């Protein structure tokens, strides 16, 4: 039976293992025929949507891996607007609104409010969280 998931990532790449564990879970869910309703980035998790990460070439590029996965499966990736603005993650709309020197949001991620999380929480069979460890 096909089920739906909302995944919430609150840990940043290159600081926590959260984006990595979440991607392993997401791929397995899709492989099993389930649907990822949306991926919601909250707190420090918004850094996963950065277009400016340049990890060493022998390390996995997690923002890149996530972007490709979301695009391939047409899954919405949403960064919480309050978390993103505080932490310096902006698209061109927010760049203009706050008169910032540049934008750094990576496609296909979008910026939206916590309502996206509430909606996912209501609609999906399961909402799972991927937090930073220790």
């Amino acid at each position, binding site marked *: 039976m096909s089920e739906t998931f909302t995944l919430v990532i609150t840990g940043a790449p290159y600081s926590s*293992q959260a984006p990595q564990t979440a991607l392993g879970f997401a791929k*397995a*869910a899709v492989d*099993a025929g389930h649907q990822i309703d949306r991926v919601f980035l909250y707190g420090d998790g918004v850094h996963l949507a950065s277009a400016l990460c340049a990890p060493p070439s022998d390390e996995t590029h997690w923002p890149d891996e996530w972007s490709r996965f979301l695009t391939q499966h047409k899954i919405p990736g949403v960064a919480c607007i309050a978390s993103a603005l505080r932490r310096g993650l902006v698209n061109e709309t927010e760049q203009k609104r706050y008169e910032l020197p540049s934008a750094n949001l990576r496609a296909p991620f979008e910026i939206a409010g916590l309502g996206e999380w509430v909606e996912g929480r209501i609609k999906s*069979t399961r909402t*799972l969280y991927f*937090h930073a*460890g220790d």
Partner: protein
Amino acid sequence: MTDIQTLHILNKSPDHPRAARCVEMMSAEDGLLLTGNGVLLLARGNLLPGASKVFALIPDVEARGLGDLSGNVSSVDFAEMVTLSLQAQRVISW
């Protein structure tokens, strides 16, 4: 796999206060899935919850050199993690 009331997913080491709270708040009908640094609980066997089913995510176990799991612990891959999360009545990510 049998029924699980609540699946507790723990990704913190046994020294993190949330690990102790997670184990405290489990019932005998619950399951515990260790991921990330949570798998280090396997090296502290006396802290494992006696009554509940315990699972550990294979890549995290192997990364930390804990291949020899105790008899009461089942190793799972991501596909089984997905199945477990749907079988349980609810999931809490600690």
